[in-house]
């Protein structure tokens, strides 16, 4: 395992110190492992709290700042944060207008956020939640844990962040979050495994000539394994399941995120193959992000997200944002 770390057991604490040193405009609560807008709480503004296991940077800590999140709770690598972290974040950002919890659909995240919401309600804070479950690699069913939450979360945090910044109330912000969540789908592929520092070895073995199609951002197995294919073929493996899952035609926000170990030149190359497939499927990619936004430690791979967008979503997307991970107009 070759990583810039001091000790596998202190990765999160050490990384948070780095965030504190490097990112202006945020305050890092090292005890609770919460990254906060420096100016939180903002009176009268709906507070947005997200969080999840670490190892997906810039998500979520990199999206804290004006126009996006008020707080992000950082769990251990690939492990949901705990309710007390979430409660601390919720209390710190509540400006009297209530707090929205943005949760990715993993049992751990859902349960811990649920407990945190109960605790916050007990302290008189109004909390609502939205659960993102957009990974088409997983068969959907009401009888199972359902789909994993992946890339749509990033786009949701930006859009909902703009709405909260603009003063929308908790009901409106929640409704908007549910709209984005319902309109987003993602699909990922891994060329290599990631290596969790505490484990010290790759999470899964993937032969040199194989790739994992439909991988999860924690190294969860995908739909199937097959021979390493060309970027052109891989593009089809990402686009087709999304287009088969829902009618994606019309304006959209598209994100191609690297998983941490894939360089930008490859992401652009892959996007060059994805673009015509999306167009052929009627997707009008109005806004495009190509880069590392939701990662899986050092995994080589990529994840495609398509969020159907209307004028409202595009307008909120374009609103100013000032975070380490996304910044424009500010």
């Amino acid at each position: 395992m070759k990583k810039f770390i001091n000790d596998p057991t202190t990765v999160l604490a050490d990384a948070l110190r780095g965030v504190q040193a490097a990112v202006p405009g945020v305050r890092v609560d090292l005890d609770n492992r919460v990254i906060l807008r420096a100016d939180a709480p903002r009176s009268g503004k709906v507070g947005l709290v997200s969080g999840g296991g670490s190892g997906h940077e810039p998500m979520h800590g990199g999206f804290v700042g004006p126009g996006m999140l008020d707080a992000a709770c950082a769990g251990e690598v690939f492990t949901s944060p705990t309710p007390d972290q979430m409660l601390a974040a919720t209390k710190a950002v509540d400006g009297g207008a209530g707090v929205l919890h943005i949760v990715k659909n993993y049992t751990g995240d859902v349960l811990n956020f649920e407990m945190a919401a109960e605790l916050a309600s007990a302290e008189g804070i109004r909390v609502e939640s939205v659960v993102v479950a957009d990974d088409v690699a997983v068969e959907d069913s009401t009888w199972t844990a359902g789909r994993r939450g992946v890339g749509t979360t990033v786009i949701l945090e930006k859009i909902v962040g703009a709405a909260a910044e603009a003063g929308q109330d908790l009901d409106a912000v929640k409704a908007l979050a549910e709209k984005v969540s319902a309109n987003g789908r993602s699909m990922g592929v891994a060329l290599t495994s990631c290596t969790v520092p505490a484990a010290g070895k790759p999470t899964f073995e993937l032969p040199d000539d194989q790739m994992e199609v439909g991988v999860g951002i924690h190294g969860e197995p995908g739909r199937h394994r097959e021979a390493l294919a060309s970027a052109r073929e891989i593009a089809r493996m990402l686009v087709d399941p999304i287009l088969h899952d829902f009618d994606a035609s019309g304006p959209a926000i598209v994100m191609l995120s690297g998983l941490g170990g894939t360089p930008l030149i490859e992401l652009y190359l892959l996007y060059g193959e994805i673009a015509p497939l999306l167009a052929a499927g009627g997707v009008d990619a109005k806004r495009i992000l190509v880069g590392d936004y939701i990662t899986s430690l050092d995994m080589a791979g990529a994840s495609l997200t398509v969020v159907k967008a209307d004028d409202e979503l595009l307008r909120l997307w374009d609103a100013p944002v000032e975070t380490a991970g996304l910044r424009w107009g500010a």
Partner: protein
Amino acid sequence: MAAITVEGLTAWINGYAALITEHQAELTELDSPIGDADHGLNMNRGMTAVLAAIGATPPTTAEALFKGVAMTMISTVGGASGPLYGTFFLRLGMTAGAESELDLVSFGTALRAGLDGVISRGKAQPGDKTMIDALGPAIEAWQREAASGASPGEAASAAFAAAEAGRDATTPMIARKGRASYVGERSAGHTDPGAASSALLFQALRDVLGAGA
């Protein structure tokens, strides 16, 4: 009628922590093919913190003991198992009440309340390949033994045997809850890590209450 003292209950928790540390790698290994390879890490982080908390101020009632265990697990474990085990111990403690000792039936009622908490939080059904597939049979066995006047050792042995059987029964199951559900049918053939850590909980109880022979 035989009773279990708070010292006995504390020894149970201490013993559980030791078993978790001993089996940490194995639990994580079980969590690899169908999960994210952290169940041993998560449980060990939590139970190590529990040990430290108990050692600092030894509790004098069952309620204080189990609420402490619950709060520590909830705030240190994370993942799915943190809130689930946390809820288990929270309800267990609330139902046991501020007593310094419990008879076998009362302890069984408290265990059942803990299980109900896990079910209402996690929404899993028996057969979904989760920890409740070990907890459920174990608690049922305890209650059955307690009702028929068994000794603590007999009840604990029966519960542990049922937990082990429940754990092993998860192997062929197709997961419908938790992270293992993502792999769908490919989850069959692997033992559920949460069921394995739950079986250890009753192993610790058996160890503390004696083989009951």
